[in-house]
């Protein structure tokens, strides 16, 4: 089997070193790029994201990648803000997002028991079946860092809870996404990345 070539979309400002190291640990080479041709030709595409939704969308629009992402037919993984960018919109700065997944990311409710940002390990509850979940089950912990999240909907594969349930993993056609950081989620996260690389192209 040839190594899948992974294109990581350079949405600017995002810290992707840990993602690239995680891919390397499971034997996958990756390129960080904002070149539409390289993204289109990659076997797998990852849309990462750390930062604010509006600023990230602005960067995607400025390079014309916003339109390209919706046209991709290979497996695409959105991570954290990258997941929220796939949705219709975000309450954060009232940003209009890519609209590939229907839904609006809302601000997590801060309570004394659930401070925001939600930073830390949270268990997930699986509510769908998908090859991305192979070997992953309810009660597995993943590492989250976020202040906004997508509500639970028909695309939800797994939920997590922080002052209320939200979508932790989703899938729609060739697009999958996680609100947590698989690259920082130990064995379970590594498993999810392996599953992503194994998704049928």
């Amino acid at each position: 089997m040839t190594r899948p070539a992974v294109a990581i979309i350079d949405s600017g400002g995002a810290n992707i070193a840990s993602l690239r190291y995680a891919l390397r640990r499971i034997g996958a080479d990756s390129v960080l790029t904002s070149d539409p041709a390289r993204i289109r030709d990659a076997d797998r595409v990852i849309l990462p994201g750390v930062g604010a939704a509006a600023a990230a969308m602005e960067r995607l629009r400025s390079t014309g990648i916003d339109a390209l992402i919706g046209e991709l037919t290979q497996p695409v993984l959105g991570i954290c803000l990258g997941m929220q960018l796939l949705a219709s919109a975000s309450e954060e700065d009232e940003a209009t997002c890519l609209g590939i997944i229907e839904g609006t990311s809302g601000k997590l409710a801060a309570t004394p028991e659930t401070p925001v940002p939600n930073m830390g390990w949270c268990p997930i509850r699986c509510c769908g079946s998908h090859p991305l979940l192979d070997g992953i089950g309810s009660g597995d912990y993943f590492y989250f860092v976020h202040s906004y999240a997508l509500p639970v909907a028909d695309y939800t594969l797994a939920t997590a809870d922080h002052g209320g349930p939200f979508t932790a993993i989703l899938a729609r056609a060739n697009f999958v996404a996680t609100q947590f950081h698989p690259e920082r989620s130990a064995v379970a996260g590594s498993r999810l990345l392996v599953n992503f690389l194994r998704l049928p192209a």
Partner: protein
Amino acid sequence: MREGKVVKGVRFRDHRIVGDIIELAERYCADQADELVFYDITASPDGRTVDRSWVSRVAAVLDIPFCVAGGIRTIADAEEILNQGADKISINSPALEDPEFITRLARRFGSQCVVLGVDSHELQGRYEVYRNTGDPTKMASAARETVSWIVEAQERGAGEIVLNCMNQDGVRQGYDCGQLAAVRRRCNVPLIASGGAGSMQHFADVFDRAGVDGALAASVFHSGEIRIPDLKAFLSGRQIDIRPVSKPE
């Protein structure tokens, strides 16, 4: 990173240290620690920043989040460390000297990257913040009351607070649950307890009594006195919500 492993101004010993850091990082990762913090406790008093060559090497082996602390004084310092793969940076003395620095870091990188370390010392019932705590000869009161400093820092955008209770530090008599609980009531961001862990019961106490989001410890883990898998099993048994130890693949 503790004194024994930090070079005393002798640069050529750096490589040996890096080896030690990587070894420790791998060991704690295999033991399923939930997060690692790397402190260069002498960076601020010496007026220098951390030697960053090891950050990317740590990032390459770790599959859990980690934070780097020590003498981070500029946006460029923080950017370099985050670009090398650290998930968070922690600031302490530089924030006390220039509180606006917290605001600038949070604006540039987001609150989730910005951890505020607070060294709090109790004197006659009053909690005060100290700076340059890595070096006893340079350590000094910052003339700020602990809770008001933490409230100001989170308003400025600090996304996490690590509260080190100096009276408890290294004594292994348990965390300062009273002080931590008081801070917890005023703190809207994750609060990590530091200083005083000596037994597994101390960890259970700080989660139960102070409602902290995490507990940090160094000596009991370095010495092997408490093994992380044992601690996690103990805490799970006490109905404390913690990522359980999973079997390796």
